[in-house]
């Protein structure tokens, strides 16, 4: 096997000549990207099933149970069904942008995974400005919704797009400030270093010293992903389905995938920045492992589903008030508290 790989590498080196290092780097990176995106797509598919099952049990129903054992093949059946359907393009729409909308919705949701560390060594791009990159990618995600809503040439879709634009821009500020607290404590923008700064057990993780920021971050994350109770961009009962009302078939499914991929992403980020990533809660008893990260992400994702089954939708003016008049002041005050306490003998609390 190694001889085969060796001969393959030599063949590449002779074919591409001096460009071989660049080419091999590109190919190797592409392979790594596939290795991240494929399991992610699987996780997205089964998150939809988990959502229907969990909400089903919360409402004393069984949930999907017809396709495969316990309905385990339901996501597959849904996917095939959506693939078979026709994508209808509204007649007076802006066709290029109409098709670009779903692409721009899902691309940032995947692109952000480039800097997410799964392990001390397992990360696609170990860049120093990782946290900034994540913030930039999540802020670009709004374009999919805006473009889709505008290009549909439909009033409901347009209203959904406007609501989403205002909401995401508002909550991004609170989210960014919450992360400022984290980088103050960790002294780094590198996600791997942020995790390592939390080493030493469950009480060293940042959820404890930065508790208000953790809560603000998580609620803002629910708002950023347009999930219930902040799902006014879709608002079935008010504006039919909001920005994706004109989409059908796979184009609609891509929006769906993007929403769930974003949910997994923000849960992953919350786990990395406030719950110690892959670190074990009791390092003396159980070793650190990637499985801890999965468990924490799953725990946070369950909250997303729980919220959806529990809370009624927010009124729009209340969403704006919560973002601007409650969350942003809380984060600002706590950043000042953290910065001030760091100069006192209690600074060790924030590492």
């Amino acid at each position, binding site marked *: 096997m190694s001889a085969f790989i060796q001969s393959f590498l030599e063949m590449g080196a002779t074919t591409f000549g001096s*460009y071989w290092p*660049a080419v091999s780097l590109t190919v190797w990176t592409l392979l790594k990207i596939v290795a991240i995106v494929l399991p992610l797509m699987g996780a997205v598919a089964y998150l939809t099933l988990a959502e229907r099952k969990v909400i089903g049990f919360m409402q004393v129903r069984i949930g999907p149970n017809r396709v495969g054992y316990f309905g385990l093949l339901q996501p597959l059946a849904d996917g095939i069904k959506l693939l078979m359907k026709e994508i209808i393009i509204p007649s007076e729409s*802006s066709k290029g*942008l109409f098709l670009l909308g779903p692409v721009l919705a899902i691309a940032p949701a995947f692109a952000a995974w480039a800097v997410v560390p799964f392990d001390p060594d397992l990360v696609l791009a170990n*860049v*120093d*400005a990782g946290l*900034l*990159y994540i*913030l*930039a990618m999540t*802020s*670009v995600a*709004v*374009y999919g919704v*805006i*473009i889709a809503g*505008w290009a549909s040439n439909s009033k409901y879709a*347009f209203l959904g*797009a*406007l609501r989403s*634009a*205002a909401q*995401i*821009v508002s909550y*991004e500020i609170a989210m960014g400030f919450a992360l400022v607290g984290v980088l103050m404590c960790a002294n780094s*923008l590198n996600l791997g270093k942020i995790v390592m700064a939390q080493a030493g057990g469950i009480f060293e993780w940042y959820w404890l010293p930065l508790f208000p920021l953790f809560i603000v971050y998580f609620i803002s994350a629910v708002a950023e992903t347009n999930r219930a109770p902040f799902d006014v961009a879709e608002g079935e009962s008010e504006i039919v389905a909001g920005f994706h009302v004109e989409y059908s078939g796979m184009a609609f499914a891509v929006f769906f995938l993007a929403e769930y991929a974003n949910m997994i992403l923000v849960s992953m980020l919350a786990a990395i920045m406030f719950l110690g990533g892959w670190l074990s809660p009791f390092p003396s008893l159980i070793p650190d492992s990637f499985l801890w990260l999965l468990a924490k992400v799953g725990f946070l994702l369950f909250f997303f589903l729980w919220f959806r089954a529990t809370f009624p939708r927010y009124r729009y003016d*209340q969403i704006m*008030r919560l973002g601007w008049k409650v969350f942003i002041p809380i984060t600002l005050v706590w950043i000042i508290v953290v910065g001030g306490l760091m100069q006192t003998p209690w600074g060790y609390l924030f590492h």
Partner: protein
Amino acid sequence: MIFQDYVFYSLAVILLFAGLRVITARNPVHAALFLVLAFFTAAGIWLLLEAEFLAIALVLVYVGAVMVLFLFVVMMLDINLDKLREGFWDYLPMAGFIGVLMAAEMVMILGTKHFGLARISAPKAHAADYSNTAELGRQLYTDYLMPFELAAVVLLVAIVAAIALTLRDRKDSKFINPADQVRVKRADRIRMVSMPAEVEVPAVETEKAKS
């Protein structure tokens, strides 16, 4: 050409194309979206220069916030483009003169005579673990603290002024104090009234009851 050169030239071509389309696109929303593309490619070029903080800040601030609000406004306006394009030829001489003047000024400053490699040497390459962000922060909060704080104050004044100019007490506002809403008790909204039933019993019902 090395690999970076290919990346630079492809980004530069996209940037120039996007910049041209910003001023030639007929639809203002398309023009705004091309501006987004231009920002994005410019960020890519800055990344090639190892200025990762500036590149990401460009995407975060301009693409993620400013342009979103810009689109928000442009999408809602009903702009009549024919009216905007009226008088293009009348303004062309003046605009052309100003354009040529600006190009000449840029050449004078950025030309090889004053900005070439002979005058300003290429920046020295940094090690892989060099953090652009930390370095910028250190400079801003030590050597340039005063200008930085002044700029912050100017921005704060601008924010306060913008809010003061647009804030007006609307008479038809239906604002309700959220604290009052939360504090509402059952007794404030519901009044139980005891009303004796005044039901006219139908004739059929009374006959059924008798039998």
